């Protein structure tokens, strides 16, 4: 048998199989099992409290899927490897992230979610009933303390073409159009105790101080064509805040955290958070980041403060070096007046904040020192020639004098010539009196006394540079 003759045929046959064969159907079962096993999920379900089964035509909704882990029985939200699908002939659509867009006509469809080998389905009714008004602030009664945030699910009245009434959560086509009115219960004036904002089709109550408020929802009724105002929804804001403190934004242990970083370089930013400790109904303590709903202040212009885009932390930027500033934070009623627009964007004042009478208010302060910018390196030239730290450079031509120019590079990547800065110290380590002599009253200029090696050490705010010069004819 001649292998050399048979070999090409075998290789060709094998290559053909290599490109043609695939057990795709069999792969699916094993791949799906690995998907479920990787996250240790043994069952899946739609979250009961956040899954809508009746949706208005042309509305949008983000479905989610949760899974139960086999080891811990913990229920977790599944964000990866979920395949969403709708029943055949559905006019509505759903994308790979579970974002559902209802069709323009009423229909009943089956929504399926597959995670690994696990499949769960629910029936969705796309309803043509039109929105009339908000009839409840939230699907269930809730309690809230000052400086907290609470997502709410307003309940609306919908009416179809036959006059049938549907009571269900306000859908995405309406929720963003609602104007929320918040008043103090006792004097009926516009309240600064709370604010309701809507983002990504989710309404949330943000509270700033304790008391009772009255909330109303104004929205255009698609049933009547008029702007309809809801009944009054009364909501108490509690005062179970026990303490308030400042922490570094990187802290995750909110129970034991404190502000460790109290020094800030000029032009650098320090991020801090306010942490509130609340008394829970079961007697335990709850520590939470309340930066979003705190009232922030600063006592001078040595630094500037601003909430981050998500309002989860306060950014302090140093302005004046070798100074200090005091950051103050309060939760509750403060002495300083607040514009209503500050309530919506987050309260950040350019003066200190202080509690009104220490009733329904807690405050704390922290001094932050603003230091000079750190020096990251020094650049030095000798008679306009660039020097390298510690490396010898030859100056030929028998120069009469040597002029050093020192540039400091700072930690924010800016640079500045510091040759005559009082913080820059020159010292001749080698060749003093024989090779070079420091000129009096002129920083960085040396008279050449003779040939040889001169070594000059430069120190500037913790950074050093050795200028090593070889002076020749």
């Amino acid at each position, binding site marked *: *048998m001649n292998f050399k003759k048979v070999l090409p045929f075998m290789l060709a046959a094998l290559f053909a199989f290599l490109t043609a064969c695939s057990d795709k159907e069999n792969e699916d079962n094993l791949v799906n099992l*690995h998907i479920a096993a990787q996250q240790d999920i043994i069952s899946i379900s739609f979250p009961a409290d956040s899954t809508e089964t009746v949706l208005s035509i042309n509305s949008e909704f983000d479905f989610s899927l949760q899974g139960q882990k086999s080891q811990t029985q913990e229920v977790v939200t599944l964000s990866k490897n979920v395949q969403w699908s709708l029943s055949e002939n559905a006019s509505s659509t759903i994308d790979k992230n579970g974002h559902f867009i209802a069709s323009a006509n009423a229909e009943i469809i089956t929504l399926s979610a597959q995670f690994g080998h696990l499949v769960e389905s629910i029936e969705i009714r796309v309803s043509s009933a039109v929105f009339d008004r908000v009839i409840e602030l939230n699907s269930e009664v809730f309690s809230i303390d000052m400086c907290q945030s609470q997502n709410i699910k307003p309940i609306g009245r919908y009416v179809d073409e036959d006059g049938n009434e549907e009571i269900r959560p306000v859908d995405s086509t309406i929720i963003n159009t609602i104007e929320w009115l918040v008043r103090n219960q006792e004097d009926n004036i516009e309240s600064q105790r709370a604010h309701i904002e809507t983002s990504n089709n989710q309404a949330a109550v943000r509270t700033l101080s304790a008391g009772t408020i009255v909330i109303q929802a104004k929205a255009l009724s698609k049933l009547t064509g008029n702007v309809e105002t809801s009944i009054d929804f009364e909501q108490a804001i509690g005062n179970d805040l026990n303490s308030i403190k400042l922490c570094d934004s990187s802290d995750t242990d909110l129970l034991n955290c404190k502000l460790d970083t109290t020094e800030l370089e000029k032009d650098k930013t320090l991020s801090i958070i306010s942490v509130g400790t609340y008394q829970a109904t079961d007697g335990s303590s709850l520590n939470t980041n309340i930066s979003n709903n705190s009232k922030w202040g600063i006592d001078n212009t040595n630094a500037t403060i601003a909430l981050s885009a998500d309002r989860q932390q306060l950014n302090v930027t140093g302005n004046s070096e070798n100074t200090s500033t005091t950051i103050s934070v309060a939760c509750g009623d403060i002495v300083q007046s607040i514009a209503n627009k500050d309530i919506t964007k987050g309260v950040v004042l350019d003066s200190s904040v202080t509690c009104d009478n220490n009733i329904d208010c807690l405050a704390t302060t922290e001094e932050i020192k603003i230091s000079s910018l750190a020096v990251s390196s020094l650049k030095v030239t000798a008679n306009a020639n660039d020097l390298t730290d510690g490396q010898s450079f030859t100056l030929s031509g028998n120069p009469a004098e040597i002029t050093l120019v020192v540039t400091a590079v700072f930690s924010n990547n800016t640079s500045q010539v510091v040759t005559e800065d009082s913080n820059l110290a020159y010292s001749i380590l080698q060749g003093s009196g024989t090779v070079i002599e420091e000129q009096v009253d002129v920083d960085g200029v040396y008279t050449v006394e003779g040939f040889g090696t001169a070594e000059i050490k430069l120190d500037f705010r913790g950074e050093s540079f050795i200028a090593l010069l070889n002076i020749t004819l």
Partner: protein
Amino acid sequence: MKCKYNMKLFLYLSNLLFLTIFSSSIANAGVFFAIAPAMITVDTENGSTRPLVADIRLAYEIEKHQLELAVMSSINEDKLNQLTVDIPSITSVFYRYSPYYEDRLKIHVILGASQIDVDSTYPNTADSTDSFEGISFGVGVEEAFISIPELKLKLDWIQLYRGDKLNINALSLGLRYEF
């Protein structure tokens, strides 16, 4: 599977070819036997499992060329959380080519075909056995013991099955004895 019939036919013909060669007598040819534990990696984008198998091979060698019949059977299953994966059997035919035949340390290029059965169990799901057939390829190295030249230490890495969403690889370290 679209090429199942062809693949089975191919494996059958390969076995016949192997037995024909094995029973013939050719100069500068030899028969050898190899045994090794092998770690099989069932590799998906979302996790891998690595059961162990016993890898037994009977082969015929003519200079730079070898033809191997491999039979592998489960030693130990592997678990990924609650998923248990076991390999009850693998049947393969490999052609091996050694380009540096005269060297002490021989490197082999491996090409062949395999059929792999994979058992899987998962809570609340019926137990299943999936069968995969496909072209296999890989590399191997072997070196003879100085005191017993007929006995060689060998290491093989072979991709037994390459699929769209799943690959099955084998890594074996064992001994080969040349009769």
